[in-house]
């Protein structure tokens, strides 16, 4: 437990065929890992819309993991190739909007890589814990006077 006692909340969007099974393998192999991650299962990385990641940050997630099958392993043959292009754009563009891309981990974890999944979880949790909480997005709501009408002093 760190001095500040901050425990990051991390959302993980994983593909059902490889990473979810890999994570399951990590569990059955009794591999110890951080408990900050909440796994959301999707059919394929191709179904992981950047909007899901934005929604996670919008609702107060401090970090996000996106993981799926290695290229050429995709159950739907090309899901992860399309996803790779989308994540490439997402990763650079999110940085431009001012969201630290170190809060997001993209990875390929196959069904047999239980240990790799545990490492991903631990590394991401440690990194995000060090980056600190990220409630900036969720608190962007300024009720009452909005529309940027504030010229300051």
């Amino acid at each position: 437990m760190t001095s500040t006692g901050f425990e990051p909340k991390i959302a993980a969007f994983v593909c059902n065929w490889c990473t979810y099974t890999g994570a399951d393998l990590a569990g059955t192999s009794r591999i110890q890992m951080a408990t900050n991650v909440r796994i959301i299962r999707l059919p394929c990385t191709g179904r992981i819309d950047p909007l899901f990641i934005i929604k996670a940050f919008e609702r107060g997630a401090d970090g996000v993991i996106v993981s799926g099958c290695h290229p050429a392993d995709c159950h739907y043959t090309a899901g992860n190739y399309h996803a790779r292009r989308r994540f490439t754009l997402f990763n650079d563009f999110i940085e431009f909007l001012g969201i630290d891309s170190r809060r997001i981990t993209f990875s390929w974890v196959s069904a047999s890589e239980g240990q790799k999944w545990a490492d991903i979880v631990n590394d991401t949790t440690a990194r995000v814990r060090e980056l600190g909480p990220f409630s900036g997005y969720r608190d962007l709501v300024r009720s009452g006077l909005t529309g940027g009408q504030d010229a300051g002093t």
Partner: protein
Amino acid sequence: MRELKNLAKRLLEEGTVKVVIGYEEGPVGVRPVFVTRPADAEKLVFNSRCVQNLAAYLSRRRGHIARLGKSAIVVKGCDARAVAGLIRESQLKREDVVVIGMRCGGVALRPSDEGPLTPETVADRCSGCESREPKLADHLLGELPPAPPKATRMFELMAQIERMPVAERFRFWAEQFERCMRCNACREVCPMCFCERCIQDKSQPQWIETSPHARGNLSWHFTHAMHLAGRCSSCDECQRACPAGLPLGLLNRKMAEIVRNRFEYQVSDDSTVPSPIGAFKQQDPQEFIK
């Protein structure tokens, strides 16, 4: 532009097209015009104040224009990229539109900006434009004017933002999106935004909060830029149409830069080249994926 008026009159008289979508001198600056009668072809003009991207009027969502019948459209190089985009994504058949390409010497920022083009009044997209003579055209009119002066304000703003640390950059965009009132002019004026029902209008689930507070606005503008990745013809109409004066063109410019660096793809007016997000390569970059 005598050539343009005669061509429009001939096309209408022959019945090749039912409407010519072009520019006219409006009460406050140049504005779009829909010429259906040959006599009205006299209204058509083409000068450095023809800023609007008329390709937005070709999208199927404009039922009341499509009903007029086959159309001819006056395009500059940047507009031709949008027409190619509509054809590439099968919103429009090539033979359903007569493209009147205009050789362009750069346009001003606003359709009401009189006077010659200077680095302060020229539009951002015109600096270093290589498509001043559109290739996608059935007719190509006008001599090629000299290259426009270079406007540097967008490059300076882009550099300034990129120099900021990430937290300050978040605050910069948060303040910008604090001004947005979600009138959606950036969506309605964009030729590549032709979805029948935008994701904002889908309420089950409501992915993007429609309330105009900074959080909902950031999610919307982020998604808009992602949906335009590798498709945006960088005509900067979204930036011009924004009543709050947000630098929306910057978002698309950054996305275009990422697409160029990562996938060596440049949006062009050649509709046969597939857009990058629809396709993929085995050896796409993936150094950021663990």
